[in-house]
C-alpha cells in the first residue's frame, strides 16, 4: 500500500466518507465530520499509520488534505504518485 493509499484509507475511516467522496484536495470546510474531534482523531491516526505525531500547533494549521501531506512531506514521508 502506498502512502497516498494509506492516507486515503485513514481519512475515509475517520471522516466516514465513501471512496467516491474522497479527494486529495479535500478541505476541512467540505466535510461535515471534519470538526475539532476529527482533528484529534487524525493526529492519532497519522501517528499510528505514519509514526509521526503532530504537535498541537501543527494540528491547528491543518485546513485540508493538502496540508496533511505537506506537513508529512517535511518529515520525509513522501506522497509522490
Amino acid at each position, binding site marked *: 500500500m502506498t502512502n497516498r493509499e494509506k492516507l486515503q484509507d*485513514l481519512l475515509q*475511516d475517520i471522516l*466516514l466518507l465513501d471512496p467516491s467522496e474522497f479527494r486529495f484536495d479535500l478541505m476541512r470546510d467540505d466535510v461535515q465530520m471534519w470538526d475539532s*474531534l476529527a482533528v*484529534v*482523531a487524525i*493526529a*492519532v*491516526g497519522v501517528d*499510528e499509520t505514519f509514526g509521526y505525531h503532530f504537535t498541537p500547533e501543527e494540528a491547528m494549521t491543518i485546513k485540508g488534505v493538502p496540508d496533511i501531506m505537506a506537513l508529512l512531506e517535511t518529515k520525509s514521508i513522501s506522497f509522490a504518485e
Partner: protein
Amino acid sequence: MLNSPEIWDFGEILNRNLGNCTLLTTPSVRSRVTDWPFNHATSVGHLDERLDTLVVIGGGTLIDEAKAWRAHRAPRTFLVAVPSIWGSGAEASPVIVLDHNGAKEIHIGNQYLPDVRCVWPELASSLSPEQALYACGDAWSHALEGFLSPLAGHSLREDLASVLVTMKSLPVSNDSRWFEPSAAACAGQARSSVGLVHGIAHTLEPVMRASYPREGWGHARLCATFVWPVMRYNQARGDRWTSLTSQYGLDGSAMLDCIESLHDSGNYETAMAHMEGAWKEVLRDPCTRTNSTLVRPDSLAWFMNRAFL
C-alpha cells in the same frame, strides 16, 4: 491536583447553617433521611428556585439533574452533592449527561460543578455486589480513558496514574473507599476526554434499556462489560497503552487483570447482539472519536470475533 468541589464531612450537612434548604433524594435513600430538618423533594420539577441550598443525595443521573437545574434555573443556590454510589463521579465533575428520550446530551462548564461534595460511607454498604461491580467498571473506565486520552497532558496523567494505583489496590466490592478515586477519576477525565468504552455505553444504553427493560442495563453495567475488551483493543492496535503505562510506572498487565475481573461474558454476548446495528453511531459518538487508539469501521470485527480473549 485535580479540580474538585470543597469536601465536607457528612455530619456538616446537619451542623451548618444552610438557610432555606431542600433535600433531593432517590427512593433508595429517602427512608434514611425522613427525619432530617429540611424540605424534601423527589424530583427537580418540585424545587423552589428561591432555595438557599440544595442537597442532592443519589446516583449520577439525579446529581446531574440537580447540577443542570442549579445552573439554568437557580444559579445562586448552593449545591451539595452526596453520591449514593460511586462510578459516575457526578459529584466532582463539571460535566452533565442528560437523557433526552434515550439520546445522551453532554454539557461541560464550571457552572455545573457542585459547591460541595461529601461522602456518606454507610450508603456503600447498601449496594449489592452486582451494583458495586458495575460502579467499579464505571470508575475504572473514567480513570483509564482519561489517562490514555490524546487530550491529556503530563500533570493530568500523573494525577490519574495515582488514581489508577489506588483503584488497583481496592477490592471489587461495596467498599466506601471507592468514592474518592471515583470522584478524582471523573474530575480528571473532564479535563481530557473519555473514549470508546463511553462511546459504546452512550450508544447502546438506550438500545439495551428498550430491549431488556427489566434487566437493569445502564451506563455502569455497559462500562463494566466493555472496559476490558476496549483496553485490550487499545493495547493490540496501538502503542499508547504500553508506552503510557510504562512511562507513568503503572503495571499494565495487573490493571488488565483487574478490569478482566469485571467482565461478564454473558453480558458481553447480550450487548454484542446489538452492536452491529449500532456501530455507525458508535463511530460518530464524540467519545469514540477521542479514543486513545483510532477506532475504524472495520474495528467492529475485532469485537465481534472476541479477539481480546
